[in-house]
């Protein structure tokens, strides 16, 4: 049932579905809807997306011809047309298949009212006719969504760790060619657990040191020729560095009182890490997406909830987005979540893998330091 909410903070399902499909090179992604929906999606999806830019006439007389026009224009450049159906055409309920330029288009119903960005990502992947290929070597990486500012860094980090173990990378969801994504290997490691694709057999996630160790331990059994010990060594070195840095921090600082806001998987990882090594007090943790039952987070998808949580908790460190930074002026801040306004993030930082752990701890320790 509908529930009023003040300043919703997370994009809708349409954006997640479009981001997922646009990340597969060879697709011609069409957002079937209004220019307003498209402009926003285009502003946060780094890959090309297109739009039918529906207007009132088409809503009254049918949207098919407009879709046909856009699909035909895209076909010379696309292996497969993907139509992301938005709120109004999904409500009208037209059969869109005959209007996709005669091609075998993938039509994904992802109206904004059916869920949030993460739901849209999963809906899109559930429509992708991917069939595991037993002859394809290596493991797939999933849990990558281009709207996540850490997605590119996460992919690089996942590839690095798998490379150190000597395990080839197969399909990458969703940052790959369409052909590769349609023929994945049988095993998948997940960068961000909130976005597990369900494609292939899951070997675990790379979010946090314990998860990395467990995942590569499992991979060693599945890939006897791999050298997962090399990754275990990296985990140990990382832990030593984190321990040393955090101990040094705690010699002259009290443990931080931290408020977390963002994607549940990242926040759970950060909560575990900062509790274990910095003795941090997790005074509140709000997830943009619906958190799993064992999460440290409660669901906080709107600014009204976030504002109340920050006011009640009085943190001395905030991990989140520019919204939280605005709500807690002067409180040391680490940016891990959209939107990243007023700041530029150009290099590909990971939040998963051992480098993700190091970046997060480094950022927390350095937050609020202004001296040279």
């Amino acid at each position, binding site marked *: 049932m509908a*529930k009023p909410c003040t300043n919703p903070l997370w994009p809708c399902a349409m954006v997640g579905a479009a981001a997922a499909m646009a990340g597969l090179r060879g697709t011609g992604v069409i957002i079937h809807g209004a220019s307003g929906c498209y402009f926003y999606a285009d502003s946060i999806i780094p890959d090309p997306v297109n739009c039918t830019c*529906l207007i009132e006439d088409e809503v009254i007389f049918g949207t098919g011809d407009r879709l046909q026009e856009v699909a035909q224009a895209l076909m010379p450049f696309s292996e497969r047309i993907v139509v992301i159906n938005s709120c109004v055409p999904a409500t009208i309920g037209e059969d869109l298949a005959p209007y996709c330029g005669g091609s075998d288009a993938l039509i994904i119903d992802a109206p904004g009212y059916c869920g949030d960005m993460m739901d849209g990502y999963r809906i899109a992947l559930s429509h992708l006719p991917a069939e595991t290929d037993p002859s394809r070597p290596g493991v797939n990486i999933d849990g990558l969504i281009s709207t996540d500012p850490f997605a590119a860094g996460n992919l690089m980090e996942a590839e690095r760790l798998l490379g150190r173990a000597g395990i080839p990378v197969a399909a990458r969801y969703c940052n790959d060619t369409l052909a590769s994504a349609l023929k994945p290997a049988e095993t998948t490691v997940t960068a961000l657990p909130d976005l597990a694709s369900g494609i292939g057999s899951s070997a675990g996630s790379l979010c946090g040191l314990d998860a990395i160790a467990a995942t590569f331990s499992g991979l060693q059994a599945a890939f006897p020729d791999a050298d997962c010990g090399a990754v275990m060594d990296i985990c140990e070195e990382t832990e030593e560095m984190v321990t040393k840095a955090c101990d040094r921090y705690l010699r002259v600082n009290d443990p931080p009182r931290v408020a977390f806001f963002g994607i549940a998987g990242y926040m759970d990882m950060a909560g575990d890490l900062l509790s274990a090594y910095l003795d941090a007090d997790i005074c509140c943790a709000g997830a943009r997406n619906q958190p799993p039952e064992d999460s440290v987070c409660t669901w906080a998808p709107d600014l009204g909830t976030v504002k109340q949580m920050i006011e009640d908790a009085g943190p001395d460190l905030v991990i989140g987005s520019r919204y939280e930074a605005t709500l807690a002026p002067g409180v040391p801040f680490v940016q891990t979540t959209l939107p990243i306004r007023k700041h530029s993030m150009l290099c590909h930082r990971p939040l998963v893998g051992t480098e993700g752990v190091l970046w997060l701890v480094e950022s927390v320790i350095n937050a609020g330091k202004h001296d040279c």
Partner: protein
Amino acid sequence: MGVLSVSAFLTDAVTLIHGPDGCTHINTSLLYTTLAEHDVFRIPEIVSTGLGEDEVIFGGENALEEALTDVCAGDPAAVVVASSCVSETIGDDVAGICSQPWDCPVVYVPSSGFLGGTFTDGYTSTLTALSSFIKPCASGERNPGKVNIIGEKNLEFEVEDNFQEVSRILAMLDLEVNIRYVRDITVDDIGKFGDAGLNIFREDTDGRLGQYFDACTGIPSLPEFPVGLSATLSFIRDAGRLTGRDPTEAVCAEEERQAALTEEFSDLAGAYVTFDSFGFQSAGMEMFTEVAEAVGIGVAPEGTVIPIPFCMPVGTLGLRRMLRQWRRFING
């Protein structure tokens, strides 16, 4: 977004969007980004009725009533309700629900996304809808020394600069700003609208706003901020005429300022420029040609390409900023 570009600047009101959360998120995000670009770190309160699949199938009127009850319980000075593509498609009677008695004033602005027109339509509709808060002049007599500034483009980068420039020009005629309708004011402030002796619109090119506010308040008006050399002088003369002030001194002072401006850019005399509208700007070229001639710059197709600004430069200060940009293009 047109609605929010006005309603979000009513500081003690709440905007309620009757649609899915995603639509409200889009607007919140774009508005926040734009404000942050202006170094304004404020997040306007925008509430969503959170329509989901159930409401799309069974109707969303209950959700709107529930949201209005919730929002009114917070005792805002007013609630501005905007409809969305989805609520218009499923046919909710938003106007009917908003017209019921509520614990605080509720203003409905039809704004159904791509079903209901453009950004400008939403902006215009909101400015006119909020006029319901205008009260008759408290003293019974308008103050000819006070001016309302109407319909500032809250999302344009130069909004404060433009306001300062118009305020400077008005001050030369001993005129002061009454209210900025609607930029960072309260609902109560709107009540003072009728005290002014002159309305100045930011840009009322089609005359819709002028017609409406002339009819509902009877206050004389000027249709737009001054753009160009001669237009700035005309603006001063017109403002003086409509407020019963002699503009001669102010016009002379501004002419001197403009002469100093052309002197400041005399190093550009003899250069040639051409103007590029990128195929979508509808601005007339006369103002640019006038400025070029005043400085001694020739206009010819082979000249340096000068992009036409998205928002026209306001007053003499705006022209100075524009000429600095021309200098960078010509010398660059």
